[in-house]
């Protein structure tokens, strides 16, 4: 009792001292100015003091962890929250999953500090029966396993598939607030099977909640986020390339603050940007791989490198990544794929895949005689873009909707499909409807060829299209036919839901061949390629 009084008096004293400063900080935050590290720490301390005085019985272990986190002078990357939040039996695994994130950093001092901290936490936790720790991490949206180590790694569930868990949502909200990134709210009635996913409306982009000009998030990132959320930039390659270009701009405009190292600070700067982009639209597998690459390159910059030199090197890295993994890869894939196209072929394509379009244009230039059937589906109707590009080239095209598939398939000799990602168990993740095409093609014995660059290979495994997917704006399904719009007021009807899925997974037995820049492989060889790639790196 006396103790709590003393604490309260203490806090009041603190408040009178730092009230002014605190108000300044809050003002600055509301104006959207970026807070310095000290200001952020002070804010955190204040909040923690408030909480302590209000609720005495809130588990102290959490407080102490927060305090320790705040008092560590080493700049903490978001990934380093993990030792604070992981469950007790996983300190070893925490270090294991830490190591890829902080690859070859000068980690000696950090590891020692961490070990000390952990020892303290363990003793505290042992003494008090702390509250259950939610063993999840709301960091970047793709979990990274360590393929080179055979220890049992606990994969961190990405936040965007835990929407039905209030604890995870709270964590995300806290993290976004700390990074000063606006939180986007869900829209509309969600079908019960998908209550674990976000569903946003295109009419409320997160950029509305940012003050312009924003100094927290780089303007090119804001623009990129808006382009993603409105669907102006769509397609796996396009999104990755746009992301990399925006990062180049960010690096260009970046200047190292005093007493900071470029290799560590720049990565910290990128984290709020990534959170913001994933609020605009969940990151794709290719974007995740690109971000991992950039972070690795940044943290590999030696500390004695001059700033200009480092920036130039990073920009060159990004350029070479785009060139190698996307542009040259598509050239290699076209070369392999053209061998598979013979004269007189009738080729079926679905939706709009930049890679497949490139292959067809190249084949047409090489004087192959074929015609193309473009299959399209509501509500995105991306096939029209493909149609436009192919007709401009001069290729003979036919256009159908996906419901006419069994009508048109007897004429088809080959099916070319693009992919969003290739999963480690051989499943192909692609635009919704791809699995349907592969299914019907299999029923008619038409070969199905998937074209995919290796940078889209992903270590996730998935067996159905429910657990990890993306829900698009449900209002897209509304349409007017014969002057009547039946679904106009779907929100008012209690038991009506609209489902607008973006991706689906195709089982490997529907796919006959995968054409990658490394060659033509069967679907089941994807983990082999992943292993080879990781050994190289």
């Amino acid at each position, binding site marked *: 009792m006396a103790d709590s009084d003393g604490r309260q008096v203490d806090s009041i004293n603190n408040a009178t001292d730092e009230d002014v400063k605190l108000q300044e900080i809050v003002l600055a935050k509301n104006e959207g100015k970026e807070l310095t590290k000290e200001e952020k720490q002070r804010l955190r301390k204040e909040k923690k003091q408030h909480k302590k005085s209000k609720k005495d019985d809130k588990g102290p272990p959490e407080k102490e962890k927060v305090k320790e986190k705040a008092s560590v002078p080493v700049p903490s990357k978001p990934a380093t929250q993990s030792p604070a939040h992981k469950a007790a039996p996983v300190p070893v695994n925490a270090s294991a999953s830490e190591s890829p994130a902080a690859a070859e950093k000068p980690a000696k001092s950090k590891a020692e500090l961490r070990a000390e901290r952990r020892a303290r936490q363990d003793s505290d936790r042992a003494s008090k029966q702390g509250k259950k720790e939610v063993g999840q991490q709301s960091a970047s949206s793709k979990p990274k396993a360590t393929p080179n180590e055979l220890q049992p790694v606990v994969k961190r569930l990405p936040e965007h598939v835990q929407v039905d868990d209030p604890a995870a949502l709270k964590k995300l909200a806290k993290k976004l607030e700390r990074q000063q990134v606006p939180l986007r709210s869900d829209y509309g009635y969600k079908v019960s099977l998908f209550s674990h996913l976000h569903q946003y409306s295109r009419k409320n982009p997160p950029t509305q909640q940012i003050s312009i000009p924003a100094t927290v998030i780089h303007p090119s990132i804001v623009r990129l986020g808006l382009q993603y959320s409105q669907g102006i930039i769509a397609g796996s390659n396009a999104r990755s390339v746009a992301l990399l270009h925006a990062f180049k701009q960010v690096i260009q405009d970046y200047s190292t603050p005093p007493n900071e190292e470029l290799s560590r600070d720049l990565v910290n700067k990128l984290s709020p940007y990534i959170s913001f982009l994933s609020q605009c639209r969940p990151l794709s597998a290719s974007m995740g791989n690109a971000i991992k690459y950039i972070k690795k390159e940044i943290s590999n910059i030696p500390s004695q490198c001059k700033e200009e030199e480092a920036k130039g090197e990073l920009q060159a890295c990004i350029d070479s990544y785009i060139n190698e993994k996307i542009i040259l890869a598509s050239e290699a894939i076209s070369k392999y794929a053209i061998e598979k196209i013979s004269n007189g072929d009738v080729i079926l394509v679905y939706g709009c895949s930049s890679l497949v379009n490139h292959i067809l244009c190249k084949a047409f230039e090489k004087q192959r005689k074929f015609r193309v059937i473009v299959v399209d589906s509501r509500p995105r109707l991306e096939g029209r873009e493909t149609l436009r590009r192919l007709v401009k080239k001069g290729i003979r095209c036919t256009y159908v909707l996906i419901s006419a598939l069994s009508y048109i398939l007897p004429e088809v000799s080959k099916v070319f499909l693009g992919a969003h990602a290739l999963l480690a168990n051989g499943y192909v993740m692609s635009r919704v409807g791809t699995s349907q095409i592969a299914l019907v093609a299999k029923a008619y014995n038409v070969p199905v060829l998937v074209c995919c660059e290796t940078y889209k290979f992903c270590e996730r495994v998935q067996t159905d299209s429910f657990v990890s997917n993306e829900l698009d704006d449900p209002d897209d399904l509304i349409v007017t036919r014969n002057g009547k719009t039946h679904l106009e007021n779907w929100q008012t009807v*209690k038991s009506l839901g609209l489902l607008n899925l973006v991706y689906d997974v195709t089982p490997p037995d529907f796919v006959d061949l995968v054409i990658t820049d490394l060659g033509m492989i069967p679907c089941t060889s994807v983990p082999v390629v992943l292993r080879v790639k990781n050994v190289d790196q």
Partner: protein
Amino acid sequence: MPGADKETDLSERIESFLSELKRCGSGAGSLRGSAETARETTALLRRITAQARWSNAGDLMEIIRKEGRRMTAAQPSVTTVGNMVRRVLKIIREEYARSRGSTEEADQQESLHKLLTSGGSSEDNFRQHFAHLKANVIEAINELLTELEGTTDNISMQALEHIHSNEVIMTIGRSRTVEAFLKDAARKRKFHVMVAECAPFCQGHEMATSLSKEDIETTVIPDAAIFAVMSRVNKVIIGTQTVLANGGLRAVNGTHTLALAAKHHSTPLIVCAPMFKLSPQVSDTPKLSTKNFENTTTNRFGNLILSKVNAHCPVFDYVPPELITLFISNIGGNAPSYIYRLMSELYHPEDHEL
């Protein structure tokens, strides 16, 4: 004078019916359900029987056959018209046989034999005159009409035998039979319905709004998501435009994909179809209507591209009988392999070609 009036009145009615049929096919989607068409056809045939001039069964059959050919020519895709004509012809044959005194049991026992050897038993040419034939035929047609009126109810009454609670049911497009079926089951059971919208006409939207008004949990999915969602579906219940003689279906486009996806996941596919949709045809030529397609798609293309592109918009799909699990009709549930028998009970082999 009155006779001539009646005749002109009759031909007027026939003409108006024919023009309505023609218009119905060229509009977007079907303006009237098949049940309505069947009822109107049968009523018209009854009127022809009552008002046309004929002296024996053979004449009547000729008249009806002639009108039937005109009606089916007006709109070949609406097969219910032809089916009703064939039913009436069979009624006439039966009534004639009954008037003559010959029984029908022999027919049914040897029907398989008769099926194989049909063509050899055209007994007589229906030239005998019977006084009460007209009345009997009209009475039998009235019975047929009552049967037609009760088909949807008969089918919906079987709903509770096939739907359990907490099921996820998938359907495609809009079928009044399936709508009544599901609404009837929803009175006692709680389940979830997924409706594939069936582009480009998107009849699924209307179906979904109508079902959700009865407090059924409904979800509208685009056609592309059928396979993605199928793994969570317990049953697929669809309606159809025609049931073919081999047990296959001619249904709205997209149904074949749905059936293949159901087969892949071993989900039962149930077809709710009343008996008047059963047709002795086996052909599966889908009907094209590109005109509708261009109207319903927005013109973002520009004419330059459209002129170089072929667009296809088939209206119907053929579904082979091995993908179908069960037919639910007004006379109960049947397997697709049994359809040929039902057909022989409804239609006479010589009427298969009108």
